[in-house]
């Protein structure tokens, strides 16, 4: 059970090798030993994550989960709940890819939307039904500010995140009466494996800082977490800029 100050006893990370997903899980259970389920494709990265979290005193299991394998999702989510209630599920998988290729190449565009949007919706439906049955639970959906106002430089990624963001924002209301919380997290540029090699932008952040803001938001019962928090106001301003001005911004 989640306690009164936002500390869970069990955490599931979908995309269990994601830098942000793992950072959030680590911080959520930093104070007390917990049960963790890392759902990801088998890989040395996953093994390393299991090993390091186990060494920190947690009970960790790995579940095979491939975001691209949509028909495999129900089985993977069942396996993730096999050990008992899940207090917090972090939907952390996603791909960025080459954005110029993403709007020109059909297969790349479809793949990006499949992973970031369709697969996110797919697990969202499964998590909602599981958590509604247990009468409690928190879904943390890692969205992005990129979905807030599409930019020329990453609009396919932005479109995919806008889709999942809208889904989870609506799901929040659908499952509220079942004791389930949905927290949508909108980070700015995060330095992580996904963004390796890309130039940093202002207000960029790192996975640990994102995790800190998420955990703080949970204790404060926030439902949308902007990280860094200033992005809420920045994006709100950017949203309302006239197109010709927005287009000329160096972002």
């Amino acid at each position: 059970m989640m306690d009164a100050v936002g500390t869970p006893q069990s955490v599931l990370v979908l995309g269990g090798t994601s830098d942000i997903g793992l950072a959030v899980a680590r911080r959520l259970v930093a104070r007390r030993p917990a049960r963790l389920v890392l759902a990801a494709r088998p890989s040395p990265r996953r093994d390393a994550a299991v090993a390091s979290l186990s060494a920190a005193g947690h009970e960790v299991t790995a579940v095979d989960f491939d975001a691209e394998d949509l028909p495999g999702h129900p089985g993977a989510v069942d396996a993730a709940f096999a050990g008992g209630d899940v207090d917090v599920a972090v939907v952390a998988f996603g791909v960025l890819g080459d954005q110029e290729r993403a709007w020109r190449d059909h297969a790349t565009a479809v793949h990006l939307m499949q992973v970031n949007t369709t697969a996110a919706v797919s697990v969202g439906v499964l998590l909602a039904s599981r958590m509604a049955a247990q009468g409690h639970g928190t879904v943390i959906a890692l969205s992005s500010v990129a979905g807030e106002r599409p930019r020329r430089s990453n609009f396919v990624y932005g479109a995919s995140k806008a889709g999942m963001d809208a889904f989870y924002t609506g799901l929040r209301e659908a499952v509220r009466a079942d004791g389930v919380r949905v927290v949508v997290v909108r980070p700015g540029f995060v330095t992580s494996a996904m963004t390796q090699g890309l130039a940093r932008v202002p207000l960029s952040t790192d996975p640990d800082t994102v995790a800190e803001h998420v955990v703080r938001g949970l204790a404060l019962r926030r439902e949308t977490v902007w990280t860094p928090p200033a992005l809420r106001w920045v994006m709100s301003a950017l949203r309302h800029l006239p197109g010709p001005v927005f287009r000329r911004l160096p972002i």
Partner: protein
Amino acid sequence: MTPRKTLTGWGGTAPTAADVVRPGDADGVAAALARRDPRGVVVRGLGRSYGDAAQNAGGTVLDLTGLRRVLAVDVERATVTAEAGVSLDHLMRTLLPLGLFVPVTPGTRQVTVGGAIAADVHGKDHHVRGSFSRHVAGMDLMLADGSVRHLTPDGSPDLFWATVGGMGLTGVILRAQLRMLPVQTSSVVVDTERVPDLDAVMDRMTTDDERYTYSVAWVDCLARGGALGRSVLTRGWPARLDQLPPGARGRALAFAPRRAPTVPVTSPVPLVNRSAVRVLNEAWYRRAPRERRRDVQGIAEFFHPLDVVESWPRVYGPRGFVQYQLVVPFSAPDAVRRCLQTLHRHDVVVSLAVLKRFGPGTPAPLSFPAPGWTLALDLPVVPDLAGVLDRLDALVLDAGGRVYLAKDARFPASDLHRMYPDIDRWRQVRRSVDPDGVLSSDLSRRLGL
């Protein structure tokens, strides 16, 4: 279809959803148990437990306020038999005019008889009269299989004392026989004094608490340094008829407190913050007389400050608040000081704090009161609260103390046996009457009870 509702404890934290069933009698309770909800059943009364004791995520919650008949009153012998859903408020309104007072009352009248036993509640008279269960002559407990046992402290000590403080996890209390307190009036004679710091208040209480039936200190938790622990100490006795002003003697047993005004909605933001608490504490301390003797007060005024405004937790906003109540042995009074200092060091806002001395406990393995100092703190939820409370846990454990399960919302399961060393004996009794774990709650899941 039973309606699904999201429920929280009085602190408003950690909401979860359950099917809420409100039976009107024992048959209804049996029917609800017979549904065999795979996620179990727990009883709820008036929802005054601060934490998650009376909620059961995904399962069934039995709202027992429908069992609300007072079944028998024996004025001569000062006993009453009441159904579990009867509130102490109802008992007082009904029985005070007959000269009978509830033997133990917590800071609110809005608790049920069943809840008072399941949490083994205490009041300002614990150092003299012990906890609620000391005044329970017997009770009927419906077990998970629907059978009913009549329990008395002598006839069935194991199950009786496992049910006392058992947080509703041994069965459903249907009715109880209580030994009431004969009184001549519905008033209390009160001595009030301001005490400048923690040492002084502990000293005052140690010296002459035994003279008083009721004793409690309100502590200003924002006062620092030399004023750390400055308090308003109120102590008193049930008033005798000859202590009332002559004009009031004709209605000496009257008791009809007005319905309290309600905080209408949950505030969107917490209204309880440092400056608000500082102003209120300062006002409360200064408003109190430096010293006033033999003041006659009504029962509601003296005992039930929490009933002055209804639904008051709403001012804490959607995050709610945590109540943390600890007891440490008399041999470790310093732990109380260190707890207050820890709260200061971490700049935690304490919206309410009360200090009191407990007398002897009961044989119940999960009953909270034990001889020593007890400090109860209301703490608005803020991001760093979790870590600070972990530090308080460590101080309490080191001192050989414990925290109160009826108020708990965040204690770590791993340390529970250190605070309640007889817990395995309690688990054994529970398993013997509920082998399938039908009775379960968010609290029992969280703490691995």
